[in-house]
């Protein structure tokens, strides 16, 4: 059981959830994740840690509402409890002084890449942050990012930011202008894939935080296996960060989308039950 300290909508369909988890808060490092279940019927969902406060004993994640379990999470109120909250899981991101680093986030990954950017800044890097959104009203945490970034960019496909670019173009433009030593990318699979593709020709090492489907999240079930450099890896214990140039993306895409129909069926069932 873990108590919800805060749950708020950051932007449409994206929610912040802060949970009382003192043990987890004491241990977590950038790039790690937690697994939680919204109720006893729910799925075990992995969520990258977006922030934590060891003194308060709280851990924050950002969720994108997609299937039944994330819908349920988005309805939880302060003071309610989730039956399962476990972590921190996975290997932390590699943080050290690389020189100039580029942190790319999109959607829930904006929250998730924040502690990575912060730690990289603390390690003495020049940090460039690039957030990808469809439209300006989908951006959040800009002020938090500006605090830990030397430069801050947004790629958006609306007129507000005066740019109609998707992330790979912006990344290509950025790496054309200067030497970037390392790229970190968190977000939907397509975003991190295009990010890795954008840096491939220049050979800039690009770490992507993979989000395959998981079940137990502790190395027991093998649901999250991905092929990296021709070898099978388990994202939950070997990752979630991997070298994006070595990931078998097509396999990951097909494994990720496989339960779409089940998700729709599950959501219909739950909505009918919950709202009728």
């Amino acid at each position, binding site marked *: 059981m873990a108590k919800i300290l805060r749950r708020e909508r950051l932007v449409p369909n994206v929610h912040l959830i802060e949970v009382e988890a003192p043990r987890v808060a004491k241990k977590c490092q950038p790039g790690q994740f937690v697994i939680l279940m919204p109720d006893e*019927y729910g799925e075990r969902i992995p969520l990258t840690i977006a922030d934590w406060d060891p003194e308060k004993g709280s851990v924050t994640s950002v969720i994108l509402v997609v299937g039944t379990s994330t819908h349920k999470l988005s309805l939880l109120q302060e003071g309610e409890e989730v039956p399962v909250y*476990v972590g921190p899981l996975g290997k932390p991101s590699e943080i050290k002084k690389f020189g100039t680093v580029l942190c790319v986030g999109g959607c829930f990954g904006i929250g998730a890449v924040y502690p990575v950017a912060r730690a990289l800044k603390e390690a003495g890097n020049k940090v460039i942050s690039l957030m990808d959104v469809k439209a300006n009203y989908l951006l959040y945490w800009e002020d938090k990012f500006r605090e830990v970034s030397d430069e801050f960019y947004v790629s958006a496909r609306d007129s507000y930011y005066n740019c109609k670019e998707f992330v790979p173009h912006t990344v290509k433009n950025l790496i054309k202008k200067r030497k970037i030593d390392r790229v970190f990318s968190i977000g939907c699979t397509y975003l991190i894939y295009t990010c890795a593709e954008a840096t491939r020709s220049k050979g800039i090492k690009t770490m992507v935080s993979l989000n395959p489907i998981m*079940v*137990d999240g502790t*190395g027991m079930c093998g649901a999250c*296996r991905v092929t990296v450099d021709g070898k099978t890896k388990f994202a939950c214990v070997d990752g979630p960060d991997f070298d994006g140039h070595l990931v*078998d993306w097509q396999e990951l895409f097909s494994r990720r989308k496989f339960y779409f129909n089940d998700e729709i069926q599950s959501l219909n069932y739950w909505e009918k039950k919950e709202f009728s």
Partner: protein
Amino acid sequence: MSENKKELSPELKERLKAEYNQEWRQKLRTSLKAKERMKISRVQMPERDSEERNKDFEEVNLGLDEEMARREARRCLDCAKPQCVKGCPVGIDIPTFIKLIETGDFVKSVRKIKETNTLPAICGRVCPQEEQCEVVCNLNKATGSPIAIGYLERFVSDYEREKGEIFVPQTSPSTGFKVAVIGAGPAGLTVAGELVKKGHQVTVFEALHHEGGVLVYGIPEFRLPKKTLEAEVDYLRKLGVEFKNNFVVGMTATLDDFKKEGYDAFFVGSGAGLPRFMNIPGENLVGIYSANEYLTRVNLMRAYEFPKYDTPVILGQRVAVIGGGNVAMDSVRTAQRLGAEWAGIVYRRSRKEMPAREEEIHHAEEEGIEFHLLTNPLRYMKDENGQVKSMECIRMKLGEPDSSGRRRPVPIEGSEFTLKVDMVVVAIGQSPNPLIPSTTPELEVGKWGNIEVDWNTMAASMEGVYAGGDIIRGGATVILAMGDARTAASEIDKYLKTKKRKKT
């Protein structure tokens, strides 16, 4: 299994003898001639009809009734030198509990078992008695059909639970020592029960959201109902064991953190992680599960009740399960119950070499599972959605015995053929869970990632740390894990006593 049949300890020998010489036992023994006892035929386990049971998850075996149990108990010759106890990894006083059944005192019988085994309802269901206690039964040598020890063990523990007469023994006065048990699987539950009875304060840390380990995520409902497991866990709670679920030792806290928090001793029973694969082309296609994932989705996450539960599972119509162990049988019978038109086993050796229990193989055959024996997969082919659509296999023949003593399977050249499948479950074993070894550098680890222990004491290379079950064995059975756990518990108790001496 030779390592199980160790000589009995002098203390156990003494106890068995004292029971054997009790007046009621002597009377009972002479009340019926051995010849008459041997005339009674072995009881048949009542089971549900195969055509009915292969469509749902209700338990297959129905259990004995009182009449059947007492009749079966009468068959036991009450030997002066019982071999059965030697075959039991936890050293249950088998003759006494059976003779108590013969007298009709079922409650006293189960209490006898619980002196040495905290989880009889589980062992009575999932232990391979046919290669442990029953195989060495003197009646087996004499008549070819041993006492049904497993059925009787199950009978008395179910009797106690169903009659609501669960007895919670007095624990020893508190010693003030704190023990952390890592993993609430068969090994962890056993250690916890033993040590709490000795007056130690025991906390069990479990990574998943239910206690039981493989008993809850692996073994299906039709073999071990969850309510049976829950009752056993509840019993431990009543004894005073504290459970902390959703706690991944190694990540949420390390053994070092626990030391600082005042824990005096540790038992690591973190089990098997990392399912093994064959590393053949196409093995990561959609529709190919490890047995762990498939069974976890269905059992722990209850995908068989989807969409009431949110976790889905592929409902394969043509399902091949790779492997010949109990986990393979559980997987293939699960697929059948989830509506597969065709569900089959693909195993590279012959039926004789299958590691699964005879009862499980037999049940699977009855339920219409097809066996492709002496067959090995070579690669998997996908359809336009990236899902597996067929597998190429090759026929095998048996060659010379390998290191395991079983004849090595050799491919027959040119015998390749294709099986049409839309789901595959790979059930060829797993490696020990890496989380504790990788976060506890002081622990010595073997080449398979297993924690190294002294097999006589179960002590690991770090002071005060003991280990047992799949984390030291790789992939074994519930009862071997429980046997390790019993040894470890008694050694931990000894260790704590010496610690006390040091303290004072």
